[in-house]
């Protein structure tokens, strides 16, 4: 049994990793011949006859097609039911690249896997829905935008992923944002929109789209204080307290106040509402905790 990789094998892990990542990022045109071979091979492994292959331009088009093919004709509802995507897609690149290393390093040999891996790579299929008699094959998107550092799907000016049939989705730091909420930020939100929005994820997306300066202009707010926590795991967390310049009769003639936190996993900034009496960002931040109520206690062994 191998217990340690050689230097050459370690170098090969990076080559294999990049081979599959680059394959996906290239957003290559689908190879029809290899796709037919791939799909037929998957059905042969499942002991099923070769299916009819239907090509579509987006996962949404695939769902609509799969619903059309599987819906009971007596069924009146036109509501889409989610139908699981199948093997033979870019979502297989993770596990296939893992075993591809062992094949390329000469550690394992498996004819069927090697054929699957080869066809998967060459076909450049984005996704599949494999039904008994038909396989729906989705082509690669035409555009994919990511955060330059984290590589999460991210775009503050438009959709992060666009398919050839114009189906698109919006993402901020890897988190999907509803189309309506994203477009509202681009067309111009008001302080009332922000205050009336109860979902922290949407407010965080607006902050990312508009930027710190614009957001503070919209809220009519200014920075009051900033502070740093040194956590037990070595992280330094910066928090900032903001307050509106105006006071609000419905808030007992007090200003509105927020603390800005940054998520250590996604890098997203969140403005979390706090009571307006705060002058100290750290105390205001601790007041939002459900479990910790003093700075000594607010020192974490885990942050993600």
């Amino acid at each position, binding site marked *: 049994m191998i217990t340690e990789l050689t230097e050459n094998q370690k170098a090969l892990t990076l080559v294999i990793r990049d081979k599959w990542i680059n394959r996906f990022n290239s957003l290559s045109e689908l190879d029809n011949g290899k796709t037919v071979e791939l799909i037929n091979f998957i059905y042969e492994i499942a002991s099923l006859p070769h299916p009819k292959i239907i090509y579509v331009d987006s996962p949404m088009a695939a769902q609509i097609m799969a619903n059309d093919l599987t819906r009971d004709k007596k069924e009146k509802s036109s509501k889409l039911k989610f139908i699981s995507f199948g093997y033979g897609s870019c979502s297989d690149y993770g596990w296939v690249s893992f075993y591809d290393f062992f094949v390329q390093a000469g550690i394992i040999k498996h004819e069927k896997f090697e054929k699957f891996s080869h066809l998967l790579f060459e076909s450049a299929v984005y996704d599949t829905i494999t039904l008994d008699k038909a396989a729906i094959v989705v082509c690669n998107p035409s555009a994919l935008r990511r955060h330059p550092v984290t590589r999460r799907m991210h775009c503050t000016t438009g959709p992060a992923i666009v398919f050839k049939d114009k189906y698109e989705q919006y993402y901020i730091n890897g988190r*999907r944002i*509803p189309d309506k909420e994203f477009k509202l930020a681009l067309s111009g939100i008001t302080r009332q929109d922000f205050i009336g929005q109860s979902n922290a*994820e949407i407010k965080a997306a607006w902050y990312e789209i508009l930027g710190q300066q614009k957001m503070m202009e919209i809220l009519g707010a200014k920075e009051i204080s900033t502070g740093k926590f040194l956590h037990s795991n070595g992280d330094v967390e910066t928090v900032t307290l903001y307050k509106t310049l105006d006071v609000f009769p419905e808030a007992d003639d007090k200003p509105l106040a927020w603390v800005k936190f940054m998520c250590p996993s*996604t890098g997203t900034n969140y403005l979390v*509402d706090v009571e307006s009496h705060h002058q100290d960002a750290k105390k205001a931040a601790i007041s939002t905790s459900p*479990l910790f109520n003093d700075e000594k206690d607010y020192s974490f062994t885990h942050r*993600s």
Partner: protein
Amino acid sequence: MMKKIIHLLIEVKPKSMKQKGHQGDVQFKELKTLPSTAKKIEKKPVALGEINGHQHVITGDYDLYEDQNRLFAVIGKKGAMLQHIHESNFRGYDTAELMPVADHAPATFAPDTIVELGIHRRYEPFQKVWEVVKD
């Protein structure tokens, strides 16, 4: 020698330092004892996202308890994890399997410990109430 020291540090750290932290909006801290009035409840996600189908869920060897809106996990001998996953990747509460991470890395809960969990909160200035952060 250095390897040995690091090994010793890793071994000692969990015993000397109480687990406390956060995974996104979910915060947790280790307790010495479970409140005597806490009642065992059916396992459920600790928090559910409104938009993305993401959830924070404890998996592994544990039981879940509740006491007046407080939530506790009593961790068994095999330990447990707080995982952040998409609901479609959920493989069951009892599994020790690491599921695909949605956004936040898993937090490990040491065997034979008691952990309290809570969700980050925000102040609603017009109703003048505290409520849990929704995402």
